[in-house]
């Protein structure tokens, strides 16, 4: 809690620091009210993918579909993630039409603990009702919130639900031999790529969380497919920031930081992967303003992986083995 108190004391008017005049966080606050549940559009879900409102595995989408109104093609992260999940899982994936915010931004950005707790309670209730055991997300902020912060408030959260980032989810399935990484690089030359560690998936996680190493292990596998993984100068828990988190306002300092990051990326590879929708938004946004860094292709981990996964055995066989 110290962090949010620090933020609260450092700024007299916290709301002033919230980007887009606080429209996103206002939506969050509305969601935290009891009896007010959003009616989300699931139009982005392809017709051929079956989804359910009850089941084992929940895809916790987060704010991505809301951002899609303002930022280009951010929905493709959600789409890719859902495609990966439904490729691997035999039961339909659970998607909540009334999914609410995890509360990350009001907690970190504005220090509104009460709102955060209300959201957590509502979320847990929803998870329990739907009979969820595994929660998968492609958002670094949702991940950290569910994985680290909820269990601090509700001790049994960790026992009730297994929270996985899509990186971990793929990694585990891969290690269990359920899937393999396939798909040769189509271009003739080797394609170099690098990875931007989101803060919430590196230095903001407990040390025993090995997600940074897991991602590297997956990237190494890509070297067999005509890709070359290169680290940027700053990486893992020392990686440079994408500029802002929690929908705080950006400014020229944040831009400078991002610009520096993009220069590192440009030296390291043609493609830069990241695993947080906001990192992608912030870093791509800068490309519109600065031509010299626009050549770097920024892609989400899920968007990159979606065409490189093959299920090893038919689902039935796996069932028999069990």
């Amino acid at each position, binding site marked *: 809690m110290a962090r949010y108190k620090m933020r609260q004391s450092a700024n007299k008017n916290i709301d*002033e620091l919230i980007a887009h005049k606080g429209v996103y966080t206002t939506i969050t606050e509305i969601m935290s009210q009891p009896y007010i549940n959003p009616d989300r559009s699931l139009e982005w879900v392809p017709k051929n993918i079956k989804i359910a409102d009850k089941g084992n595995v929940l895809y916790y989408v987060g704010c991505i579909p809301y951002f899609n109104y303002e930022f280009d093609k951010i929905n493709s992260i959600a789409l890719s993630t859902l495609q990966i999940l439904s490729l691997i899982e035999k039961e339909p994936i659970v998607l909540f039409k009334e999914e609410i915010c995890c509360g990350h931004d009001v907690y970190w950005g504005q220090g509104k603990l009460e709102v955060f707790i209300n959201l957590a309670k509502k979320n847990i209730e929803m998870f329990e009702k739907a009979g969820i055991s595994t929660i998968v997300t492609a958002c670094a902020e949702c991940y950290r919130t569910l994985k680290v912060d909820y269990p601090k408030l509700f001790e049994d959260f960790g026992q009730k639900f297994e929270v996985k980032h899509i990186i971990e989810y793929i990694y585990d399935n891969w290690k269990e031999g359920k899937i393999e990484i396939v798909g040769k690089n189509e271009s003739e030359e080797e394609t170099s790529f690098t990875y931007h560690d989101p803060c919430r998936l590196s230095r903001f996680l407990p040390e025993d969380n090995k997600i940074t190493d897991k991602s590297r292990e997956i990237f190494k596998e890509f070297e067999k497919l005509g890709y070359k993984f290169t680290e940027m100068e700053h990486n893992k828990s020392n990686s440079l920031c994408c500029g802002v988190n929690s929908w705080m*306002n950006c*400014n020229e300092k944040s*831009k*400078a930081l991002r610009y520096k990051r993009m220069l590192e990326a440009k030296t390291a590879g043609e493609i830069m992967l990241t695993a947080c929708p906001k990192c992608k938004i912030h870093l791509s946004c800068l490309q519109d303003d*600065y031509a010299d860094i626009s050549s770097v292709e920024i892609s989400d981990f899920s968007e990159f992986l979606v065409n490189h996964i093959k299920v090893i055995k038919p689902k039935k066989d796996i069932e028999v083995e069990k």
Partner: protein
Amino acid sequence: MEGAVLVIGAGIAGIQTSLDLTELGFKVYLVEKSPSIGGRMAQLDKTFPTNDCSLCILAPKMVEVYRNPNIELMTYHEVKAISGEAGNFDVTVLKKPRYIDEDKCKGCGDCAAKCPKIQVPNSFDMNLGKRKSIYIPFPQAVPPIYLIDPELCLMLTKGVCGVCEKVCEAKAINYEQKEQEINIKVGAVVVATGFDMPAEELSPRWGYRFQNVVSALEYERILCASGPFGGHVLRLSDEEEPEKIAFIQCAGSRDLHENVPYCSSVCCMYTAKEAIITAEHSENAKCFVFRHDIRAYGKNFYEFTQRAQDEYGVKYFQTKISTIEENPETNDLIIHYEDLKTGKFNDFVANLVVLATPLVPKKGIGELATILDVELDKYDFFKEKSYFTKSLSSREGIFLCGFCQGPKDIPETVADASGVASKVATLLKSAQFTQVREKEFDVAEKQVNPSDEPRIGVLICHCGINIGKYVDVPHVRDYIKLLPNVVWCEDNLYSCSSDSQELIKEKIQEHNLNRLIVASCTPRTHEPLFQETCQEAGLNKYLFEMVNIRDQCSWVHMTEKKAATDKSMDLIRMAVSKSKLLKPQKEEKIGVIPTALVIGGGVSGMTASLELANQGFKTYVIEKEKKLGGNLNNLNILYPIQEDASIFLNDIVGKVESNNNIEAHLESTIKDVKGYIGNYDVSIIDSKDKLTEIKTGAIIVATGGQEFKPNGLFQYDGKNKQVMTQLEIEQKLQDTDKSWLEKLKRVTFILCVGARQKDGISYCSNVCCGTSIKNINILKELNPNLEIVVLYRDIQMAKKEFEEYYRNRRKDAMFLRYELERLPKVTKLAKSPEKYKVEVFDTNLQDNLNFETDLIVLATPMVPADNLKDLAMMLKVPLDRTGFFLEAHVKLRPLDFATDGIFLCGCAQWPKNIQDSISQASGAAGRASRFLSAGEITTSGLVAEVTQSKCIGCGECEEVCPYKAIELIEITKNFEDVSIIVKKSSINSALCKGCGTCAATCPVGAISVKHYDFDQIGAMIDSYLLEKIKNGGII
């Protein structure tokens, strides 16, 4: 030479010309016969084609006139005599008695409320509504001063009553007031007397004597929310809602038997408008229009008449009316008419009939013409000196504008009015700025720092009993007195009276006030008065705040005194909270380079340049072709004056070339435009790629139009030599060798080729009919044996001269009417000499006709000049969907762009003939010269500002700014190990109007509007809500 101007008539023409004249540095005496300014436009319900509320767009201008220190408003006055000559006229004006002391009356209306006289017809409502014998014509009247009708007032007629004198708290009633003659000296006179619509003068067959037959102007009042029926469409006999309403066009006009042979020019449009508004008002009413031709003379007008039919289900019949009779039992009307489409005679029963009766010169125009010693034309409109100098009358120094010269619509009138101002400025150049006053303050401005303890003074007005009767003012005063930081609070009878101004000044000194609030009427009319008083006492005018407890409390809560009182307390308390946060603001002066740049060297561009040059401003005219003249170079004979175009062309080009103030750049185009009003840097490039840099204060866009080439239509392909456009035949007629004409037997003109279509060009370009009619006659004169056939849809000749011109030439040709649904067909019969067959269904004869022809002339619409998009981008001004430039407001600002400093005229705005182009060009020059003459512009203190450290350079503010006042600038920022260029929003205070759109849009809250910033507005909201919560009112 006098630096003052007399303007006669205070309708929109007189208002516009007066406002422009004061900005050009002249004092104006604005004489109006009736008790209020506003004229006919104030009576209209809506204006076409945008359906803006007419009074809503006019009232701000009326208030502007009222507040203008250099306009002496002489309403209820008449001009009696004039002597002298241009530059030095002596004028006698008769002031008619209002029986009210103008200086004392505050317009509170207490007198009329108590006047016992039974109500009489109100002429503002076309005698449909009622008023008392002490009255103002309408609630928004300017000046808001009452008057007594001497023929009705019991005191004045019988010497009894006197109630108004008893109730008037301001002691303004004076039954002894007499007529008074006032002598004034002026340098020039502008006549803007307008029109009447005397339906009672129609012949009996139109049935105006029946109760349920009304004139269009009466119907405007019926439609109007402030009219006699409160905006409900009711007929007069039974005040029932009519189900079938018939609109009769050309009722008495274009008709030699009714003595009004000309077309009134605006009726087709207002009929369509009235039908649309009726459809919007009442679900049951069905509208039927009995039309002749459709003449939609103006920008996007033709499409408007189509919308009435397609979107609002208004039915149009092409008819001739024989008589209108009444069914005495039902009071319904029976219209006997001939259907011109079927040739049959029919009857139509309507519940209400609206007549588009002719618009004629204002009553009394003959006497005025005699007094002014100027000529009238044969229709009794004022006669212009010559067709192309229509703003000049027959007497030097007396100018004309608006409807007193002939039928025209509001935008034409406004353009005329600005043009006249320019002409006057040229005439009275040596006396400019000699008789205008600018307020100077002798008390030094008091320093007020944000850290100073606010010391607020509040004055609450009773406005006679106008506020006092419905709001418990003493109670409000006692409440406000106790608020923190309020050090002085009083209430008084009239806060706007001159002794109240002295009181305010005294109290500011006595209590060392650093904020002032007046709670009274509307800031629109009174804020500048109180601001001036503050300034006189040394208080920055932005430390003043006004609360409108009249409109918002006493007027709207007339029956609930408690609510009105509570709301007054809330509003004033909120103002007190805001007032604490007010900061003194500065108004900056920005210099103006006194030169102008005119883009386009056609007739509009040349006229505008000459106007500006004659006013003494260096003017650059940029023409892309090798010579000046534009489309005029292609014309043969000009109509209706039947003069060789080259005479007019050589004359005007000669004037431009010999004028020392004009610098023409031929074969040149604009390459780049930087800067803002008063300070533009323009680069122009010529055919040899030579760059010239020009510094200029204003820019006029006069890029003109061009003829649409109808490739693929009616055998026109560029190869068939005997199928040509109007311009092509004009050029051919300019050849000295005319032997080609003798070989021709029959020529066919096809009108509306590629115009007024469902797809493609949907507009009517207004000038093609006139050109065709002219050319018929020219061909006929050159070869009298020639047979001419004209295939037309409607004949668009809506100007006072044109109807006669058209009728005289009708005999020269056979006119066949076709419909869009059944286009004529042209097939080629022979190659050499070329011969064509024409097949057409003539709707007049209801028959198919086939004939052969040797020559086909196609009348095609005018389209915008090429490459306007790039120019529009450079100037940051918009184009409309048809590709012409889009003006700031179609009705009232036809020559301005929303961006200050840039103006437009001529065919750059819309297709128009030479006379209108000249009128607009003079007007645009007048508009531009306002800034150039002033030499500097004062920015408002009420503008948006950017906190640069917060700005993220996203550019959303730049996108939404309607005045193009925001630009993104690039700044290099250095950090430890990188340097980046960041964009920052930058607001030009010379262009900013303080609308606040940017502040509301900025995603990071980096923009705030001075005097209305987020803290100030937040303080008001907090003050309101916190008090409510405290009292348990909400939540």
